[in-house]
């Protein structure tokens, strides 16, 4: 277990990792986030679900400021998000992100994908960065692909590389935006397994996903969003068993019919 992990487990469910207070966001006239209040503790695993277009991606993209919010306050690891570039750099170093469409860099090898940011952002020596990258590639079980290019890998392998790439920055918080939605069914499991394994190390995770099985096994809390609002949240079993709102009921019935 690495130092970062022991640290993460020792402060498990202690200090707040992320705080959103009264966050509002508009795309033009479209009100995509409405009065969002959300606290995530260190080591907590939160699954965000909700119908398409409900603002889930926008919410987690505001946390590492790929999107800017217009009202309210977002504090990540004790740093408030603002236009100050230095705070932005600090936050992006602590927050890793995994995208639906992998977004690996196709002109770099798998190893280079993983070492680029540690070398140029963390200023890690190249040797050390490569050793670290190999360690994480082993953890996601594809060390033998290190010299290949992303285009030569399957979707599931690419997504596992994307997870390793984010982990190489030793983030305190990981954001996942529908990491399995672009995958063929037979590859979904390998990615979910990787995420479960990551959750077991005590990583703070916010994960947008419709994989209810994953939510049940891993999540400390499920947040249900609809039309830019957090409608309900709670422990997975309870939320799924006794939905209080019609919106969640409708959503759950659709999800179950789809699977």
């Amino acid at each position, binding site marked *: 277990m690495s130092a970062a992990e022991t640290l993460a487990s020792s402060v498990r469910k202690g200090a707040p990792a992320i705080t959103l207070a009264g966050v509002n966001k508009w795309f033009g006239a479209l009100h995509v986030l409405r009065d969002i209040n959300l606290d995530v503790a260190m080591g907590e695993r939160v699954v965000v679900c909700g119908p398409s277009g409900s603002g889930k991606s926008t919410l987690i993209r505001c946390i590492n400021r790929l999107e800017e919010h217009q009202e309210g306050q977002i504090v990540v690891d004790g740093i408030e998000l603002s236009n100050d570039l230095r705070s932005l750099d600090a936050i992006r*170093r602590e927050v890793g992100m995994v995208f639906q469409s992998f*977004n690996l*860099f*196709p002109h770099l090898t798998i190893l280079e994908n993983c070492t680029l940011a540690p070398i140029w*952002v963390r200023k890690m020596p190249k040797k050390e960065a490569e050793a670290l990258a190999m360690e994480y590639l082993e953890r996601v079980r594809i060390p033998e692909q290190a010299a290949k290019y992303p*285009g*030569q890998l399957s979707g599931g392998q690419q997504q596992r590389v994307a997870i390793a790439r984010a982990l190489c*920055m030793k983030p305190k918080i990981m954001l996942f935006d529908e990491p399995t939605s672009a995958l063929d069914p037979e590859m979904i499991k390998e990615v979910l397994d990787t995420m479960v394994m990551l959750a077991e190390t005590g990583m703070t995770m916010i994960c947008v996903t419709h994989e209810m099985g994953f939510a049940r096994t891993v999540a400390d809390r499920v947040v249900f969003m609809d039309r830019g609002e957090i409608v309900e949240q709670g422990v997975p079993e309870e939320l799924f068993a006794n939905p209080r709102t019609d919106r969640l009921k409708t959503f759950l019935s659709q999800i179950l019919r789809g699977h």
Partner: protein
Amino acid sequence: MSEIAADGTPLVAPPEPRRAPITMIGPVAWARENLFANWWSTAITLAMIYLIVKFAVSFVSWAFLNAVWVVPVSPQGIANTEACRALKGVGACWAVITEKHRFILFGTYPYEQHWRPLIVCLLFIGLYIVSAMRRFWRWELALVWIGVLTLIGVLMWGGILGMPYVPQERWGGLPITLILATFGLAFAFPLSILVALGRRSRLPAIKALCVLYVELIRGVPLISLLFMASVMFPLFLPEGLNIDKLLRAQIAIILFAGAYLAEVVRAGLQALPRGQYEAAEALGLSYWKKTGFIILPQALRLVIPPLVNTFIGFFKDTSLVLIIGIFDLLTAGKTAIIEPAWQGFGVEVYITLGLIYFCFCFAMSKYSSGLEAEFNRHRRR
């Protein structure tokens, strides 16, 4: 599944893959499909074969069989071109090249110093070859460029190391063309990248400036820019300050090429999926690191074909400097046939000039397609 023997080998050997019948593959099939598919296709093919053969035969007899390669030259240096004139229209007069090639290549550069521009041309070609090899793509290459370009300046001007000083007005021919093209693209390319990035900048002032530059320059012909550079520009300069004419033309070419290349580069930046920008940002890469490591390498690869297309266009467009009296390769060729003895032998000179331009442009084109193939090897789409 076929039947399996006890030791696991198939009982029935799988059938050998059969070759397609000869009528379906190979040159015969190709010709039948593409040239003789029906009666009118056959008629057109036969007519074209007739024309091509007839043209080839008359060209070979003009260019080689009946050609005049040398003519007598009087001690005063006047060539006796009667032999050529007698064969006009029947045989080529390559004697004009034999006689005038040094003038065409080096213009009015002092005759006994021609070794200097010759070395300059070879240095340029060497520089291109070294820069083309990927294993030399390191930052030291920039030093090599600075060194070689300085050496080229020293050789052309002279004035030291026992080489007599040669003013810029006397330079001419191929070195001028290579200088204009090389310096032009070496400066225009980085400029175009900055402008393309500037056009996508979030800062309105920078964006406006870049748009203004591109639109202004694209809106006028290169010829008028060159005229402005040679005639109008000096009017605005303070008395006594005189910028070299070649340098002014060079700046005009850089600005012009920069605007066009900027649009090509911008197309590449726009073609890149937004996810690439976001992934780089999410990893905490700063703007310049993101641009340098992730965005530009991919964007430029995407636009290699239009980029090289523009390069080739500008290599040839350098010949427009002839209208402001700069002695490039084309001007030197034109001047070589002004002499009464050689008047009327333009075709031979222009064919030669065309071949020289072709060699450079074709090399660029071949190189770019190789580069493209190499870059795309790992991309599966």
